[in-house]
């Protein structure tokens, strides 16, 4: 074994080798149990801590993952990115089919809010739907990070909104892109 490792060390410790090793290690860690535990612990503790969090000093990724509240507003509640974010440790990620008031508890508690621009906020903004909602959320809560995502990416109104919100993503963006945004914004929130 030692011989094999020394013969193959270049390969093993090169990028792909490390990736494979991590993959293998990951495979043997019983992830589900772990994830479940984290969810249970944090769901109980984390409501209403928004103000307190803002004044905190810089925090590491592990801490940020537990403290940041992420909300997706999307009529397609099967949107798997939510599950993927939870699996990768952003345990306070929730999805809501629609919201009927800007004072919605989940909205108020969130630090980062993803809004699908199609098919949501039909009651609040019958004409502009998600576009209207995202703009209104940014007006009401300038300190929150508002991200719009959709499969449609053109139109004058869309470009107007781009200037207002914090970021936009395409609906078919890789989960990595969603997570990278969350990571970047969570740093800003705790800075």
């Amino acid at each position, binding site marked *: 074994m030692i011989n094999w490792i020394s013969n193959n060390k270049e390969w093993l410790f*090169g*990028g792909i080798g490390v990736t494979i090793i991590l993959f293998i290690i990951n495979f043997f860690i019983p992830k589900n149990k772990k994830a479940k535990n984290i969810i249970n612990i944090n769901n109980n503790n984390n409501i209403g801590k928004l103000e307190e969090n803002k004044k905190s000093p810089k925090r590491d990724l592990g801490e940020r993952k537990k403290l940041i509240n992420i909300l997706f507003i999307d009529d397609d509640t099967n949107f798997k990115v939510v599950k993927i974010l939870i699996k990768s440790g952003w345990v306070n990620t929730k999805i809501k089919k629609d919201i009927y008031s800007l004072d919605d508890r989940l909205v108020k508690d969130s630090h980062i809010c993803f809004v699908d621009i199609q098919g949501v906020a039909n009651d609040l903004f019958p004409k502009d739907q998600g576009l209207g909602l995202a703009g209104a959320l940014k007006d009401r809560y300038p300190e929150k990070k508002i991200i719009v995502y959709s499969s449609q*990416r053109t139109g004058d109104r869309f*470009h107007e909104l*781009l200037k207002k919100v914090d*970021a936009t993503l395409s609906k078919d963006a*890789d989960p990595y892109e969603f997570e*990278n945004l969350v990571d*970047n914004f969570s740093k800003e929130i705790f800075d």
Partner: protein
Amino acid sequence: MIYFHLTNQDEEILYSDLPEIYYDKFQKCSVKNETFVFNGNKHRHGKMGNEHCSAYLLTNNKDVVERPRLFKEKLKVFLEFVPTIKNIESRIRTKTTTHTTRLLHNLRTLNAHNIQELFNLIPESELRQKKEDRKRFIEDKVKEQIPKMPSIILNLMKNNAAIKMEFSVFGKLYGTKEKVKNQKHNIRKALMNVLHLFFQDFTDRNIFVEIEECNVEISIDYEILQVALYQLFDNATKYAFENSNIKISFSAGGCTFDVKIDMLSLKIEDDELFKITQDGFCGRNAKKIKKNGKGIGLFVVKQVLALNNVKLNILTRIDNECTNIRGIEYEKNRFVILFPKNLVV
């Protein structure tokens, strides 16, 4: 305002910016030039035609309303320009159709690969016949073929990524020309995200990829970076010599941050170097080993990167050696992506 309304012999509208409130005026107009009062304002309108079409002009612009000769001249010029306008329209259409046809063709091909991959795992014919628990049937089929699953999943992932690349290229370069959206990304992480899609292709050809450590963060449009890296690695899987190493390193130059990809790959002839990033160009050696594509890979890389002010440099024969393997010439080539320093976070 001056409004135009153009119809063909069958009275189909070819072009019109005439507001609906004036339709009645258009219908009733039978002269080349006359004035009328509408909603308290003086207007001038007129109709003129030839064997192909009929042009109608209506205006409430005071300068034109008061000058009948100017109006007549405008109407005449409008009619004379119809063939030119039609020509421009058809040229734009051809150009757009070429890109759309290419997009559809590529998407169809990739989708076909996905469909075949899935139905090869679970035969459609059996799926059709099975009347009881379909989920159970699929579960059993998957269990039977567990060793094949990693390959199947990797292929599906790669095809899906390729589909996304097609959308990105079209969206950024040809369709609505979407705006560049920069976000902070760890360059090595972004690179690994694309590289892992080619894991299978590289291992099949016994090519090892060595990547230097790097913690540099770059502010860039992720789709652009993804497209560029995808095309470069896709080329590498085809043109790098089997059993060789690809080395990826990072370095800060004078006013750029560089990602260097070094590989022993198909010789790029000197006269081809400047053509290789042009649309539709394929290298002679790629044709020789019958691995030539449509010659758009590096062209696309250069074009998308330029949107972010990022450059692609290609250096050939960096160690001055040429390796001849079974009549095919290979050289150490270097592909450098140069990020301007202002993008480095």
